[in-house]
């Protein structure tokens, strides 16, 4: 595992959860011609550019982090809807 390629959130998640069956939704940042590494690793990653999304096991994260074509692995975070939950004054 090349921990230097993992963002803080993914590093924390991998440390927190030792369950080998758990899967992580991540962004995979690749070199310009690095798409083939995902196919070779058997990863079904979406997108065509240098930033792909994928759902990976901890073992796949470790394997990809050791590949030269992979620059960065970032844990997907959860967004919030941007409506304002406010109470009216009746």
């Amino acid at each position, binding site marked *: 595992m090349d921990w230097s390629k993992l963002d803080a959130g993914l590093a924390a998640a991998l440390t927190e959860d030792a369950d080998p069956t758990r899967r992580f939704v991540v962004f995979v940042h690749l070199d310009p011609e690095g798409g083939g590494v995902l196919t070779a690793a058997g990863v079904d990653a*979406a997108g065509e550019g240098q930033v792909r999304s994928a759902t990976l096991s901890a073992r796949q994260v470790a394997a990809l982090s050791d590949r030269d074509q992979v620059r960065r692995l970032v844990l997907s975070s959860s967004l919030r809807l941007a409506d304002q939950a406010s109470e009216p004054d*009746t």
Partner: protein
Amino acid sequence: MRYEKLGPALISAVEDFRQGGRAGLAVHQGALGLVSVAPAVKPARAVVFLHTEAGADLGPLARLGLELNGGDGAIRTGIIPLARLAELTEQALVHRIVPAGRLRLLLDVARGAVNVPAFTSRTGLSGRGVVVGIVDSGIEVGHDSFAGRIHRVWDQTLNGNGVPEGRYGAELEGAAMTLSRDTVGHGTHVAGIAAGADETYGGVAPGARLVVVKTDLLTAHVADGIRYVFRVAADLGCPAVVNLSLGGQDDSHDGTDSLSAVIDEVSGPGRIVCCAAGNEGNDNIHSRLQVRQGGTRTIPFAPAAPVPGGPPVVASLIGWYGACDRLDVAVVAPSGLQTPFQPVITEGSPVRSHTRAEGSVRIVTPGPDPANGDHGFLVQVEPAATSVPAAACGRPGGWRLRVKGAEVTDGTLDVWSVDPGSAQLSGSTVADSMKVGSPGAATEAITVASYTTKTTWEDIFGDPHEIGLELHDISDFSSEGPRRDGVEKPDLAAPGAMIASALSVHSPVEPAFLIDSLHALMAGTSMATPFVTGLVALLLERDPSSTPEAVRAHLRAHAAIPDHQPGDWDPKWGAGLINAWKL
């Protein structure tokens, strides 16, 4: 007469009817759904909402002249002769009767405030030939506002084979789209503002086609959703604008996070993304401070108190500072006990965990982020159920983040609470700035702040309400910029409070925000963003190859901050309120 069962406006009308007969009702006719007020064959009657028990058989009440419309829910609509109202209130199954108010054109208030009707009538633009992508909580497929214009729905939350952009969820077309439900109501409301076709509460681009992604809100899947919309639009040969009325704070606030990178990558001529600035304007979620070589600084923070038996509360703080600095990070528990200062760790796992009586602490201090070269760290605190309450923050005994300058050249540190609901910051370093997170921080996005065009209204029952916002001013909840690297975000402001738009029948709505059975009021930069999305759709109809840069510059050039010089920019207003008149 059981007056307690009547809405206030109906009581007033009934009293005037008693005292002045039909003539007494004249003053109420403009506001209430009164019919047959003028002398006529029929008696004076009122259109009412009647509260009863769900499934109750009200057929026998026809003897009182009550004419009910369809439905068997707890709230029925119908017409009642005013002369029989007293008898009706005596019926056990009748819980409450409120008059149907005569509605004002609330969204028209917003549209008119920024001259959208004048612009569309002058140009004839409606968004025809443009795809509006809604990546949100879904859409009410059966709502009349979208009839025949929803091209496709990708519901990421359903089981299915997915789409080329992601092998999960289900892609739906035609009648099958009704399998996807907007149980939140947010996406339906947003879609209505951007592209709803409705005589009363019409959207900005009512001629546009809709491609909808019901997302699970994970950033990676939102990115997939954006790609999906642009691909489907390309298949149709249409330009597209994607609306993202969502956001977060778990990023570097400089537009280099992964979702922002995808937005920058896929945006281009005829492919534009509009994003909400966020609603953290009133939240203490950001601190900016200077750390000196060898010096320490402290930021108090208050984790939300965990509820006994409830889900665990994790307060997450992120910090970002320059590539040339190295800061050590520690956490002080309410007891005063501190974790060891943790340096940047570039070999092996950068994660260290600590257990204290007051809760558990995890600190992550990796090496520089390749995306921007800067250092980011993460602190997660899970208070024990018996820990010091949130109110103790800022006083001796509260939780504190401590940083020490190990190698300092610049020393600027920014810290955010990832979730305002889980932790808020306090102390002298709290700053009302740099709260526009991803995806609003994306360089190529058009990022929208909220302006308030309406603060009072009457709900479906005729009850008056007022929201605690300043009318004709920037909404106080709207998040402030700029980005951490100084880039100007938000770009501009648009009406975002209070906005009437389409209601999903599958979503719960606070009655106070319900306008009628098909529309509701909402507020937020979520509502301001589709306003601009709709305008972008109009501009793409005029020039399908417009670039994000050109459209953003065009919109900003037609925005202004009151009492400011043209071209001024403000952290809360951006370039100011859009004026569509001369777009």
